[in-house]
């Protein structure tokens, strides 16, 4: 049998990692409920599909212009605008249309956001509609894992690079977002894709061009993309710092006898590289072209989109035992608030991964210019003498430590600014996590090399096979806690905290956010559905109507289950109701006590003893 080339082996591992990621996520995603945002994106994705459906009909009738008229566009594309661009929502809608198992003409026909004109012909890969919606997000997660592996292979031996890829997906909070049809998983993929393309562009102009298009796609996924250039420019200036230093006055070599002037380097400013030009030109073009809603009033609607996020409301969020829903005004509160992304990282990422990342940071800090990141791997020595705007990293060390530092700490530092909203918790700086995993991979490689060298010098000097197997075994060992913790956390990844915090219970005791947006009801849907009081008079608290529609479409709730609406009046109209445990919802629990006349719930959904959802019945049990 023909042996695979090293390149072939690397590609084989790429596909294995991606496939394993898809398999893991598809195996578990059904257990995870629908948050407020995901419910809206189901609805929007299906409506966007409606535009394509109508486009096909108009094409057949020779009236294609109707689909591109202002009303033809806005009828579909104004859903969830100006909140978010539409690349992912469109993919979710297309995936649903292609892969769901159609029962669309059955009792749930009226729950679709667009008219169902007949039974859909599909490739019925998935039993649940929601899985078909989520599939593109899952593919994006697999793409991320594959990219982390390939990026890390640029510095690291196979075991450490593979571990970096596994440690990327095996983070409870990232894993939560990786399987749902929202944007935080996909934008993490795109942030890494932009960074990877930029990195390759430093010595390859083809990637300089590609990076612009990739950046445009990132802009079409989520607004986090606005920050990406801010994290690339500092690295570029650092990498080309010799250009900047050439403008400083010449240093004199001491002052004593025999002192000589150091040779003056040729003065030059760092050139604007192709990659930034490409991002500046292609990024906005791709962004504008992908979003039909912008086409009718480009300037006005782009401004509306920008303002939506620049002036975003501060939702409620628990951190350090306090409820945060406004920018802090006192110095103490500002200081506490500034710690949040760092503490949240420290308490959510598996501890072994964090320790490896610290070891990796030390390795990067101690690396000498032009040396390899890890001994035995390709060096960073310049490949040419002269700089070029097409290959701006060809004549210098590309400074991988600075690159990884900025990509990891940049997104975290932005969320440390007290005036930024923190309601999403870790999801707002998930883009840092793949880079953190790469740094952990670097730490692992260095530790494995030391261990192997130690064995070679010791009693296992003759054990060549043992030494050869050790890096892979070590990689498996350090991935074990991350994978175990991640599987343990499911389907309540946002409630989970790491060994340092003390797990679910430790996070609750530390006053860390437990959940948001009502997804955690999923495991108790059967119980609710079986209760006669839920028929017509059920109060759903933070479960949005779109999520309820999807539960009914999938048969997880009967069609007769009611929804009495929002807030205090919704509770007044109900006989049975649920409450999600977040700090700011205490007000709602008070309404239950008063209106239902009892403090005694009929059911509490908990994880490891920590309450997530409480169910009350009017008059008590």
């Amino acid at each position: 049998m023909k042996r695979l080339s090293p390149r072939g082996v690397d590609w084989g591992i790429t596909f294995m990692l991606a496939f394993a990621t898809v398999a893991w996520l598809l195996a578990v995603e059904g257990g995870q409920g629908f948050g407020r945002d995901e419910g809206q994106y189901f609805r929007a994705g299906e409506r966007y599909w409606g535009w394509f459906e109508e486009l096909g009909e108009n094409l057949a009738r020779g009236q294609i212009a109707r689909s591109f008229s202002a009303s033809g566009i806005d009828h579909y594309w104004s859903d969830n605008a100006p909140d978010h661009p539409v690349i992912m929502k469109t993919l979710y809608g297309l995936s649903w249309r292609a892969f769901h198992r159609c029962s669309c003409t059955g009792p749930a026909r009226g729950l679709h956001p667009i008219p169902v004109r007949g039974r859909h012909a599909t490739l019925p890969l998935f039993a649940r509609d929601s899985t078909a919606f989520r599939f593109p997000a899952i593919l994006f997660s697999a793409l991320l894992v594959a990219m982390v592996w390939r990026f890390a292979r640029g510095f690291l031996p196979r075991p450490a690079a593979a571990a970096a890829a596994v440690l990327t997906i095996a983070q409870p909070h990232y894993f939560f977002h990786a399987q749902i049809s929202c944007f935080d998983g996909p934008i993490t993929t795109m942030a890494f894709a932009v960074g990877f393309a930029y990195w390759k562009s430093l010595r390859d102009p083809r990637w300089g061009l590609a990076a612009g298009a990739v950046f445009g796609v990132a802009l079409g996924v989520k607004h986090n993309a606005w920050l990406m250039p801010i994290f690339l420019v500092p690295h570029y200036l650092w990498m080309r710092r010799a250009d900047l230093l050439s403008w400083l006055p010449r240093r004199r070599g001491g002052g004593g006898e025999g002192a000589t002037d150091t040779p003056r380097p040729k003065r030059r400013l760092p050139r604007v590289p192709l990659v930034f030009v490409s991002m500046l030109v292609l990024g906005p073009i791709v962004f504008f072209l992908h979003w039909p809603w912008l086409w009718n009033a480009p300037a006005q609607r782009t401004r509306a989109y920008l303002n939506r996020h620049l002036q975003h409301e501060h939702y409620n969020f628990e951190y350090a035992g306090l409820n945060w829903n406004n920018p802090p005004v006192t110095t103490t509160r500002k200081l506490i608030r500034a710690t949040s992304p760092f503490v949240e990282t420290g308490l959510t990422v598996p501890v072994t991964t964090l320790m490896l990342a610290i070891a990796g940071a030390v390795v990067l800090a101690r690396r000498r210019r032009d040396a390899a990141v890890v001994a035995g791997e390709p060096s960073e020595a310049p490949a040419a003498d002269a700089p070029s705007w097409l290959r701006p990293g060809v004549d210098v060390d590309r400074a991988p430590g600075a690159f990884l530092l900025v990509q990891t700490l940049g997104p975290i530092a932005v969320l440390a600014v007290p005036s930024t909203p923190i309601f999403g918790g870790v999801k707002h700086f998930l883009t840092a996590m793949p880079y953190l995993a790469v740094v952990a991979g670097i730490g692992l490689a260095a530790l494995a090399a030391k261990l192997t060298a130690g064995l070679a010098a010791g009693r296992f000097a003759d054990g060549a096979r043992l030494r050869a197997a050790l890096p892979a075994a070590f990689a498996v060992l350090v991935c074990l806690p991350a994978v175990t913790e991640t599987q343990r956390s499911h389907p309540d990844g946002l409630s989970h905290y790491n060994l340092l915090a003390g797990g679910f219970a430790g996070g609750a005791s530390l006053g860390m956010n437990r959940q948001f947006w009502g997804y955690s009801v999923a495991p108790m849907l059967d119980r609710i559905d079986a209760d006669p009081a839920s028929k017509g008079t059920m109060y759903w608290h933070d479960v949005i109507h779109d999520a309820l529609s999807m539960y009914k479409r999938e048969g997880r709730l009967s069609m007769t289950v009611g929804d009495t609406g929002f807030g205090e009046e919704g509770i007044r109209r109900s006989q049975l109701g649920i409450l999600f445990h977040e700090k700011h919802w205490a007000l709602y629990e008070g309404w239950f006590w008063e209106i239902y006349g009892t403090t005694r719930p009929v059911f509490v959904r908990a994880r490891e003893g920590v309450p997530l959802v409480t169910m009350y019945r009017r008059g008590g049990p």
Partner: protein
Amino acid sequence: MIALLALTETAVALIAPWRAPRDADWAAAAREIRAGFRAGDLIVAAPGWADPILRLHLGDLIPVEVAGRLDDDRYGRVWEVSQRGARADGARRGAVALTRRFGALTVRRVERPAEIVAYDFVAHWTDAEVTRRNGAGATLMACRNVGDRIQCPDISYNFVRRQIVEVDNRLRQALLAQPVPGAFVVVAFPAARLGSKLIVAAGLHNTWMRKEARGPVDLRVIVGAGTGARDTSVTVRNEDGWKPITIDTSALRGQVAPVRFEVSSPAPYARHFGFAAEARE
């Protein structure tokens, strides 16, 4: 080191779910408490986040007025159901009369001298005479009891009623009395039996209202009448939470005297002010 950490973290992740209290633990703990429970006992969970599960099993013994209590000091016997070595604030003071373990739960009964309540102003809210007065103290409007509240004329939100308030994301049973522009809302109890001290606690209700506005609210408490009256003022802001005040009334102990609460604010927009008070021996 890393290998040891990895093994430890994996082992903890596998074992931790089994260390959490089970339904059977809660049921056994509840049986123990029910067997020894006396009217007026307080039952608390430690850590506090386990409170919904505690109420699932023993909620019939924790009525609204207990769950939304002013503080813990009026309770002489406190049952604490704890896990993971936690301690409830309400069970810190006193002698431990009983300790029993039920799986991952520990039940303790703590006993201490209870503070006797001579007059509970929240429970007696219908005794209150509510008026709206101007800055000089002249009565502008008298308010009347309309069933679930004492409503003042002309301003819909100018009323006093007993309700559960959410202050600092905790629930309390209190009197809600929103301040109004340019006037005082006066809640007067003409005949309250006093003890050695008057315990008052106040705060701003509703997390969305605290997000919406930052104006301070002033509460003036006048105990007694004439020249011997005790006059105490406190200002409550968003960050203050459930702010306690203790007023020495030992000179009036055992007497029936008027007690007046005056609520005002220089910026009354979205200020849902709640307070509770008890005269204690």
